[in-house]
């Protein structure tokens, strides 16, 4: 046991936890009943209750979370599939315009989303799909696709081309090769791509706010507009905050190992 190391660990632990205290605080609030909620000094130890979650069900917020799940799930599935195919081709073949495509893909990172809200709003209004799940899904595929192609490509790049050639000699078809060899090999990487794409859709607000209707509103939109006529019902807010953010917290702990690579990608690489 190294005393110095232990000491610094304790210091770092305290600082990091103070930093993310706002998260703990709202999670705690989610379990307070109405009386405890407004008590000053604030209580840290109390009997937890589920009142706020019941209230949330009455408020209709469960539908919003469900909407988020639907929109995120469908758009990510399509984006990952298209992204994988493109990434494979971009990793393995040389063809005219390839660098241009790669440049274009990385440059979408720089585009301010505000430039897109008007044309997308108008396009989807003309098509008559504004307010539907489809409108959000279509937009989110476009939003995550560049990242999905780019990051998947780096994982395919790590697989030696000799493996492709060996599979070819063994008479594998391309899709059998993907299914049996390549995808299992880069599976952890694909999970990371999945999680990062998922986060950017799950957390998105600006476009969802404009494209959704009261029936298709995702959680981010409900949360951002949760203030009632008489101000905030903090119990309700806290409960929805918890439901909305805890899946994200769990996910990032599950992919800890790939977190740094995924986050610094397109920045450092």
């Amino acid at each position, binding site marked *: 046991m190294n005393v110095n*190391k232990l000491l610094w*660990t304790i210091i*770092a632990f305290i600082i*990091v936890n103070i*930093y*993310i205290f*706002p*998260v703990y605080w*709202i999670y705690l609030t989610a379990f307070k009943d109405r009386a405890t*909620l407004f008590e000053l*000094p*604030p209580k840290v130890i109390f009997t937890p209750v589920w009142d706020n979650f019941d209230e949330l069900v009455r408020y209709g917020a469960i539908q919003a979370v469900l909407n988020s799940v639907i929109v995120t799930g469908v758009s990510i599935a399509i984006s990952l599939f298209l992204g994988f*195919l493109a990434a494979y081709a971009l990793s393995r*073949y040389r*063809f005219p315009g390839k660098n241009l*495509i790669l440049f274009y893909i990385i*440059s*979408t990172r*720089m*585009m*301010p*989303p*505000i*430039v*897109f*809200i*008007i*044309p*997308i709003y*108008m*396009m989807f209004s003309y098509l008559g799909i504004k307010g539907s799940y489809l409108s959000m899904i*279509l*937009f989110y*595929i*476009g939003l995550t*696709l560049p990242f999905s192609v780019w990051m998947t490509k780096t994982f395919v790049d790590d697989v030696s081309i000799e493996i*492709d050639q060996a599979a*070819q000699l063994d008479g594998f*078809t391309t899709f059998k090769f993907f299914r049996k060899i390549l995808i299992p090999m880069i599976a952890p990487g694909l999970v990371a791509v999945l999680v990062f794409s998922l986060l950017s859709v*799950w*957390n998105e*607000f*600006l476009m969802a706010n404009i494209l959704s209707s009261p029936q298709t509103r995702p959680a*981010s939109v409900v*949360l*951002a507009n*949760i203030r009632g006529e008489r101000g*905030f019902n*903090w119990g309700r807010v806290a409960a929805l*905050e918890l439901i*909305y*953010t805890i899946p994200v917290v769990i996910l*990032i702990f599950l992919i*800890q190992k790939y*977190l*740094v690579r995924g*986050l*610094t990608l397109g*920045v*450092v690489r």
Partner: protein
Amino acid sequence: MGNKKLFLFFVVPAVAYLFILNLFPLLWALGLSFFRYNLLTERVPTFVGLGNYGTILLDPAVWTRMQITGKFILISIPLQFTLGILIAFLLYKELYGRRLLLTLFLIPMLIAPVASALFFRYLLDANFGLVNWLLSEFFNTKIYWLGLGKVPGLGVEYALLTVALVETWIWTPFITLLVTAGLSTIPQSVIEQANIDDISFIDRVRYIVFPYIKPILGLALILRVMDSFKTFDTIYVLTAGGPGISTEIITFYIYKLAFQGWDFGSASALSFGVLVIILYFTTIFLNYFIFRGGEEQ
């Protein structure tokens, strides 16, 4: 599998998709910026050439918003860098469970900005908030964090400071992440030599650490400046641009122009103005990235 037609079939869907839902809308917005088109007053867009751009450049309302954006950037970015670098130094030390601590610390930048903004709306609530309770208990004072009162010494409204602080909370982990990546490029031999020579902390930072993290700090700075122009979600939740116009940074102004004033022509033109500013930083970024950063990996 070496079939060259097959790969074309693989790339085409993704590229076609991006053309339709990325490049095409971009061109649409550019086209729209040459028209006078206010949904409330005219049914058909009228071509005005560069008219919208001229109006914007001469409009004091736009310049006021640019000033607010500038102040916002000047407050939030130095804070993010100072805190981010200090915490990176801390997490760079030999620690038990370092990855776990780093993951915990990254939570703010990975959860939705809308959610983060609400955490602080609760903590900073004038009457029920924990922060004001602490202030009144120990200093017998209260601060209206989302109000128009001026921050002593800074000359900006508390509302703008609060938005900057919340953005700092969200993005400090990003700086820490990048600096940590930079620190990991310092060769072990250099650190050992520094230990043997017993160099002071200040000199260590100046002569050993700084040269190694300088490139990545430059990169982080460019990215953060670019992204600061895009700030929207936290402002929507915390202040909706108010009180008055005190927190209306440029992106929020464009949003209001488009979806409260329904002036699609001017809003498109202004969004292209912002795009040009961001492109300026992008070229710096790409120059750096391709011509200098290339050999670093």
